[in-house]
């Protein structure tokens, strides 16, 4: 549905997006994750035909964003990051205006407005000027506008930024529901956001794609490097020496506190049982023994930090 090939966008000498390629299949819901300034919005603006790419191509539903821009704009629903709206217009007026721009005739327009108002819980504010609405309502008006012409592809730039926790949850469940009959691409700099809503994540940093896959796959990649934490009571040097000898321990750090030895191990296998057995053999007490599986968060921070180091 979305096909991006070797896309680059430069602002002057700065490379905002540097040679990225990815595809999004029909009916998929994909998260575009990256820290602020990573190039998410720039990429999205190329996809939505707001500005052209410096090089590379992008196709949406088979239409090229540059040469068939109007066709692309007809099949996408776009919620820009800042949710720009006309403050002097009333919600209904605004949706009517947008409906006309999107080529809906009067009957279709009114039906579409009724549908999106219902979906985005806008009934209470339909007659109010947009300038008076709270951030949460404005976000919903923006979303309602994006859904108005029932587009095949929905592109949402930071859809929950600035919302309160309850609204975030409502918006997330709405997006999940929308994914049933739309292809959705959403961007976020918050990992939980993407983890909670998306089937697949594309992580971008400094204009490059640094990783992509389902949250599960991404987590798999990190779990290989899990940490193990053990706290045992015994003579420090003896404990350290014998644990180091265990199969699967690749690195070990230790510290002593009130006779307890706290070990932080990097392991290539699960050695918890061996440590327990060793301790009982030697008569050491054990008060903590756990495996610290790296969270997606850690992974995200790590790759983002890693690519930053590499580029600087």
């Amino acid at each position, binding site marked *: 549905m979305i096909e991006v090939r070797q896309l680059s966008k430069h602002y002057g000498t700065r490379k905002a997006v540097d040679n990225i390629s990815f595809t999004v299949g029909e009916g998929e819901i994909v998260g575009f994750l990256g820290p602020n300034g990573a190039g998410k919005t720039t990429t999205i603006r190329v996809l939505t*035909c707001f500005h*052209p790419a410096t090089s590379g191509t992008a196709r949406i539903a088979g239409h090229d964003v540059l040469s068939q821009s109007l066709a692309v*704009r007809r099949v996408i629903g776009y919620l820009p990051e800042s949710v720009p709206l*006309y403050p002097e*217009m009333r919600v209904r007026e605004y949706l009517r205006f947008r409906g*006309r*721009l999107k*080529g809906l005739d009067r009957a279709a327009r009114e039906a579409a407005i009724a549908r999106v108002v219902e979906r985005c819980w806008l009934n209470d504010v339909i007659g109010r000027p947009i300038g008076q609405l709270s951030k949460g309502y404005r976000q919903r008006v923006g979303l309602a506008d994006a859904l108005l012409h029932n587009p095949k592809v929905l592109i949402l730039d930071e859809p929950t930024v600035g919302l309160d926790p309850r609204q975030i949850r409502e918006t997330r469940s709405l997006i999940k529901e929308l994914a049933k009959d739309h292809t959705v691409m959403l961007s976020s700099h918050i990992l939980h956001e993407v983890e909670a809503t998306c089937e697949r994540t594309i992580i971008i940093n400094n204009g490059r794609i640094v990783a992509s896959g389902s949250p599960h796959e991404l987590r798999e990649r990190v779990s290989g490097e899990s940490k193990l934490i053990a706290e045992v009571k015994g003579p420090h040097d003896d404990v350290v020496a014998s644990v180091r000898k265990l199969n699967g321990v690749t690195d070990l750090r230790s510290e002593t506190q009130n006779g307890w030895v706290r070990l932080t191990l990097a392991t290539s296998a699960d050695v918890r049982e061996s440590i327990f057995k060793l301790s009982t053999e030697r008569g050491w007490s054990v008060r903590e023994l756990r495996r610290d599986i790296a969270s997606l968060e850690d992974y995200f921070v790590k790759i983002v930090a890693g690519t930053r180091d590499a580029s600087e």
Partner: protein
Amino acid sequence: MRNVLAITQRELLSLFFSPIAYIVTAGFLLLTGVLVIVTDSIAPGKPATLREVFMWTPFVLTMILPAITMRMISEEYRSGTIESLMTAPVTDGQMVLGKYLASVGFYVVMLATTLVYLVILAIYGNPDFGAALAGYLGLFLLGLPFLAVGLFTSSLTRNQIVAWILATVPLMLLAWFAYYIVASVQGWLRVVLQQVNVMTRLEMFNRGLIVTDSVVFFLGSAALFVFLTIKIVESRRWR
């Protein structure tokens, strides 16, 4: 065309929901009212004509018309609404044309409010309606390029005051300067000034003469600036 009209309608709605429409109309009526008084147009014993008022109205228009168009595009850039507009299935040309039509529509309404002076003249005298009609046509045609220049400067900046100044100063120069210095220069400058001297062109209309080359000049220059506006809006995508 449907897209153009959708933009036009929204633009008019915005104009009438903001104070600017009322301030502009009030200012225009006040200034033309002052003109009616100072030119002694409605006075016993004088010919029943608005010729002198029409003669001075362009000076008012140089300030008033850019105030109508100054926010039309600059505000879209400032508030970011340009993003939702440019990602909707509307061409840049349709967008600019829609906005331009809205400004023309507003100008027509504003101009129509001055018909009250003609009504007063008709009550107390016997004005030449043919000449008055030609005078109105002249003012309408003159407004077309003025509005197009205003829309053009509005596309250059995100600050509406800057847009207003950028349009008003050259228009004032055109309306005043060309009129007063055309006789005192020679050569090519004279030829150019004669062509762009809108006041002399307007004088013809006030006499009841509709001159084809003036009609072409007003329509053509308006079209030129609308076209340039479209090009500016298109080119801003590439930045």
